């Protein structure tokens, strides 16, 4: 049996049978999966060169549906797992996928700190404004007044604005996409992977089962593309990006909101100047060992 060459192919025969996505028919995550595969094809990334890390939730099942190294980790903990793996071997292309509950709820602390560090990671959030896998509770991005199983009289908590949070936390590539427009999404994922630094892509990925408000139709009525309306915008203009990020209502912008080039964590960590950690020698030389003992004498 031949070994697969792209992450879109399956290595394991049984997988083709067993591992087809278990998402509901019409789930937005299908669009994200196909866009993600397309983006990696465009970039000619081989399965062994990529690590896809996720947390827990419907969308966090994604690593199981692509042919790459993957960790399907704990709820909310995909970013620290990805960070540890990237620091251990920064030759790997590392992509993190997950949902709004995973990333902006239980994992929001890691989200903020991962962006501050500006590691060369790509984080794709499938944002459906609901907890799907646990059958329809309010999520951190559920809009005010939305009725869910846990907000029967309508949500009273202000939703998180992921783009604003990303801007103020130091992400160096911030974009928004819609799973109903896979070509656009695929292009943004491709750019995100190419970006040297922390790339965050918030993807509207409708939950057809538990979110009857933020549907495909609801998004289609509101979304517009920044590249159409403001093709000459300065992507490094922070204030401009803040204004764009705050637009959420009758009109919702899609596209690249902010992009700056800054040194990555890997670039500034002195230990990594000697190459990936995983390739560095282990143990201690006698001279250094003796010196370390000597220093206490």
């Amino acid at each position: 049996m031949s070994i697969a060459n792209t992450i879109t192919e399956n290595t394991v025969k049984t997988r083709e049978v067993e591992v087809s996505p278990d998402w509901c028919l019409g789930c937005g995550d299908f669009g994200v999966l196909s866009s993600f595969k397309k983006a990696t094809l465009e970039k000619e990334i081989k399965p062994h060169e990529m690590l896809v890390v996720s947390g827990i939730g419907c969308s966090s099942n994604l690593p199981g549906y692509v042919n790459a190294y993957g960790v399907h980790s704990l709820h909310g903990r995909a970013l620290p797992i990805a960070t540890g793996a990237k620091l251990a071997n920064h030759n790997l292309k590392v992509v993190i996928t997950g949902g709004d509950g995973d990333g902006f709820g239980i994992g929001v602390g890691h989200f903020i700190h991962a962006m501050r560090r500006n590691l060369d990671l790509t984080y794709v959030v499938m944002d459906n404004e609901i907890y799907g896998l646990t059958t329809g509770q309010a999520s951190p991005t559920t809009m005010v007044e939305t009725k869910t199983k846990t907000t029967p009289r309508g949500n009273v908590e202000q939703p998180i604005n992921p783009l604003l949070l990303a801007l103020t936390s130091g992400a160096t590539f911030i974009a928004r996409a819609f799973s109903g427009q896979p070509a656009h999404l695929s292009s943004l994922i491709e750019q995100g992977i190419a970006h040297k630094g922390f790339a965050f892509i918030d993807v509207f990925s409708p939950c057809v089962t538990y979110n009857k408000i933020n549907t495909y139709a609801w998004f289609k009525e509101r979304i517009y593309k920044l590249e159409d309306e403001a093709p000459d915008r300065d992507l490094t203009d922070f204030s401009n990006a803040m204004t764009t990020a705050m637009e959420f209502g009758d009109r919702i912008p899609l596209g690249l909101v902010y992009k700056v080039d800054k040194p990555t964590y890997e670039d500034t960590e002195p230990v990594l100047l000697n190459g990936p950690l995983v390739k560095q020698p282990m143990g201690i030389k006698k001279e250094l060992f003796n010196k370390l003992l000597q220093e206490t004498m």
Partner: protein
Amino acid sequence: MGKKEVKSNNMPKKYNEITVGFGGAAGDGLDKSGNLLARVINRLGLYAISYNSFQSLIRGGHTFLKLRISERKEMCFGDNFNVLLAMNQDSIERHAPAVEPGGVIIFNSDKVTCDSSLLQENIHIVPLSFKKLTSEMGKLIPIMQNTMILGSLLYLMNIDFKTLEQVLRDIFKQKGQGIIDQNINVARIGYETALEDFASAKINIDWNFTHISKPFYSGNTAMALGAVAAGLKFYAAYPMSPATNILHWLVANSERCGVLVKQAEDEIAVANLAIGAGYAGVRSMCATSGGGFALMTEAIGEAGILETPVVFINVQRGGPSTGLPTKTEQGDLNQAIGASQGDFPKVIMAPKSSTDCYHIAGEALNIAEQYQLPVIILSDLLMGENFETIEPGSWSHEFNIKRGDILEEIPQSMKEKDGFKRFTFTPSGISPRPLIGSEGMAYVAATDDHDEDGVIISDVFTNTAIRRKVNEKRMRKLDGVLDELEPPQLEGPEDAEVTLIGWGSTWGVIRETIEQLEAQGIKANQLHFSYLLPFHSKEALQILNKCNKTIVVELNATGQFARHLKAETGFSITDTILKYDGEPFEPRMITQRAVAILNGEPLDLNVTETEAREMAYHYIRVHLKDKLRPSKIIEVSQNGYGESVWVLDLIERNNGEMKGKLTIGVETGSTHKWDPTN
């Protein structure tokens, strides 16, 4: 100032070791002074072992550092207290009464006085006026009083000045000749003043110096160095006492040791960072204390099911919750055993000394990688933060790194069949893992349970067979681990009257207890456990069945290890000796209680006179603005409190004026009443 000798007409006792206590406030430089003295001791070829007790009984931030100095390597800080170096008045009040007959108290008489009525018999007081003695040296920083006091101490300990001079030269090398000379001169003033004015206070001891210099490491720093020697490449941490020194040491030595150190936002991130690095193929470790460990526990199970090697260190402190951040305890055994939901293989190790911390770090990294599982190391504050002289040759830079099966190419057999199977069900339970990034072996490690390929079985209707077999495969790894770990062994005579059983950091203090019991004519031996999970049940039971009386000695309130021992062996011990007051065992405490147990005496949990005084100090600090101190104390049984009480006279700190009586319950320890005079 001047010569003042109290009751010094007894026959001079011959010493073979000396325990020095440094008392002062945070910021008095006790750590630096202790370290300076230890360097002198270690260069002379003697041994030192320290215990640093942070106290807040009198004033915030009171610190007491004990250094036991001996020709023989001692394994605990002992019972004795021969010399007090008092950097402030609190230290006199608090510690001077405990200095043993024949001992010495040294202090700066510009700001400290010593009331001889506080002292035991035959104590030598050495007041040194820093201001007068150094008046010709110009302005000096106050902390240099310590250097002067150390100079005096060395003379009184019968150690010549030369080594101190050399150590000062080395320590202040970066600061220039001026600072070096200043320090040496101040130290010499202390030395010569002791020689000229206090020669009769000199301790009767003849040292045999080998002049073989020895390193001085704490358990935490030893653990860090041991891990580096064993190939550690990645370390993550969130600051938490008493584990922070591992982080500090590794950060300081990160570049030259080639270890990437990452401080993270919380312990949940720390644990997952470490797992991510372990997954990607480097030796990975993290450390914390009980509270942080609690946050890590979900991730420990994650490492278990992902079959990812990673080492978690818990440097225990007093719990529960925030508990006693600067105090020691062995209270997290239950937590470690129960860490994370479900069944999965994990290993728990507990080093027995600072020296052992070096070895156990390497062993933990080896076991973690060979068996692809989480290893937990249970250290504690006593061992982690306190230093001991390391016997030359007990550590080697050479370490046999055993990484287990790591594949850089897909095995031919798999290539020809279905492709790479990450979690192949094998007899040993160990499935060869790929070096992430290697071609042809891409797989997903999932925290959902999964089959041999890694495909999750959580979303199929049911698959009892795969679930059973993958569970068994993982757990089977512990059989191999157990074979690899050294079984427990009885130390001391087989026909002992009593066996003292311990785990972790109590090894040294129990060892000394055995000697004390023998000196009292009681034949005793010791059974110590360094490996707590998996447990050598068969070997332990074989030993226990041959023992007479068996006592588990541990530093917690509920006998966590005693219960574990019972669970693993079914063996019922005779009794326990437990301590949970924040301070470590001293050998005499164990000896006394062991003798009492052998004599059938019941456990007495009443508040002792010393404890009543401690409680009074606390009351004074909280309610009486720290202006008083306890003086006379009596026990009164007929009273209206339903229990005997201690009644303490509290007097004005400055002039000794009676200010009132404080009543403390002997059984409950409750502060029943404060009755001010007039």
